[in-house]
């Protein structure tokens, strides 16, 4: 099991290297924010331990709820913020009616 997982780990690393080759400067921030959202995958860890582990103390459960909350913040916050940032770039094309609402929130 460990060897298979290590193989997956190494290959995933190469995929990560390969995906990011040329990025325009303007997209550095959204890309960082997007990858940031993806490591919110730790949410799964919280769910797994809390869901499957049988002998958890009340304190452990508390820690895990916090961990799941943290992971969820990471995921939903990360993707939403990235989407908002990228929404700003759409300005290149003629403005769409649907963007007006988003601009309203951005200016608040």
């Amino acid at each position: 099991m460990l060897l298979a997982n290590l193989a997956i780990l190494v290959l995933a690393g190469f995929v990560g290297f390969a995906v990011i080759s040329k990025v325009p400067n303007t997209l550095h921030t959204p890309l960082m924010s997007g990858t940031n959202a993806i490591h919110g995958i730790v949410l799964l860890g919280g769910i797994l331990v809390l869901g499957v582990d049988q002998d958890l103390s009340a304190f452990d459960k508390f820690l895990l709820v916090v961990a799941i909350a943290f992971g969820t913040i990471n995921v939903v916050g990360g993707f939403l913020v990235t989407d908002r940032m990228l929404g700003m770039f759409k300005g290149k094309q003629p403005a769409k009616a649907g963007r007006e609402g988003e601009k309203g929130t951005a200016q608040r």
Partner: protein
Amino acid sequence: MITVILGLYIIAFALFIYGLMGLTGPRTAVRGNLIAAAGMGLAVLATLLIPGVGNWALIVLGVVLGTVVGVPAAKQVKMTAMPQMVALFNGVGGGAVALIAWVEFNSTAGFAGEPTYVMVSSLFGAIVGSVSFWGSLVAFGKLQGVVPSRPISLGQPQQVVNALVLIGAVACAVTIGLGGSAELLIIGTLLFAAALGLLVVLPIGGADMPVVISLLNALTGLSAAAAGLALNNTAMIVAGMIVGASGSILTNLMAKAMNRSIPAIVAGGFGGGGVAVGSSELGDKTVRETNAADAAVQMAYGNEVIVVPGYGMAVAQAQHTVRDMAKLLEDKGVEVKYAIHPVAGRMPGHMNVLLAEADVPYEQLKEMDEINDEFARADVALVIGANDVTNPAARNDPNSPIHGMPILNVDRSKSVIVLKRSMSPGFAGIENELYYSPNTAMLFGDAKSSVESVIEELKAL
């Protein structure tokens, strides 16, 4: 069932990778982000299908709590505060890994009977996750202005102290490895790692913060992958490692755009000795102050005006006002362009986001390499709250801490007007000799109100 879950995971990986590829191109970025988000949804769903998952109430509680906090935060954050928001989101991810490792330790009585690799990767996750959490909090504090953005360091002993703290964390972890099961050991590991996170990020100047956030982002990815190894969860391994690897590349790209090396940034002390030298040299030079009327006349009767936006514009939320001013100038036949330094503001791309928000036509936004030769032809370079990215010391003064950083050649234009709140130095804490140059005039005040008064004057012309 396991096959179904693995199948769903594999689809999720494909979505992550495809989504990330989309995020690297301007036209596909929005879709890429949505695709990656869909992958995440699928991965969560698949995990909930794993046989034997219970404690539903608590799982739902955690997810609801996270959603209630995360969604409004992400929806309401101002575009100017985006960088620190990313830091915060990154931090909580690292925090989650650290907390999971803590619980793993507790529920297995110090990893008793667990395979070595589970213990090693859990402890690795605990240390790196904790470093990332506390480091990100400092980065957030610095960008938010809660913590002073200038480097806060212990001076020479800094590296020694950092090393000792790291040794402390590793020593606690090794003791656990040798069979220690006191809860104090895992708490010690987390606390030493926390101290390390604080000590490493505090001495780093605000100007380097984007790179630091990106680095911490990559670290959180690695810690997530480690947690995945410990929990034998393929989705966490793959997603975490992809972020770890792509995050490192991105960190490198960003550091290159600022002409900084990652080791130099992490070693800290940006803007140490050079600051004092700079300010004493410039002490006796004078600054020319101008007013809105004069600025309006200069720009209205020029052929080309290049606007150089920086963090000052972002803070004052002046992007819409700047856009209005540019419209007025264009009506008078003046060509207006925007020079975007790759790291203007607090993050690469920060200015593009703000100006796009204000509906500035994309064709007018010029990247540094594209516009740098044009400054010599411009009648006026209007610097709005940008500082370090215009500092000629980066070109001329080998002793300057920012020497070698690519800058906008603002000083080569016929006339420079700088909108600035006061003479205080910029984010990097370095004096800007541009302000003392004979063809530079300063227009002091809040960027937005300054531009508004320029607009008034333009209308009166």
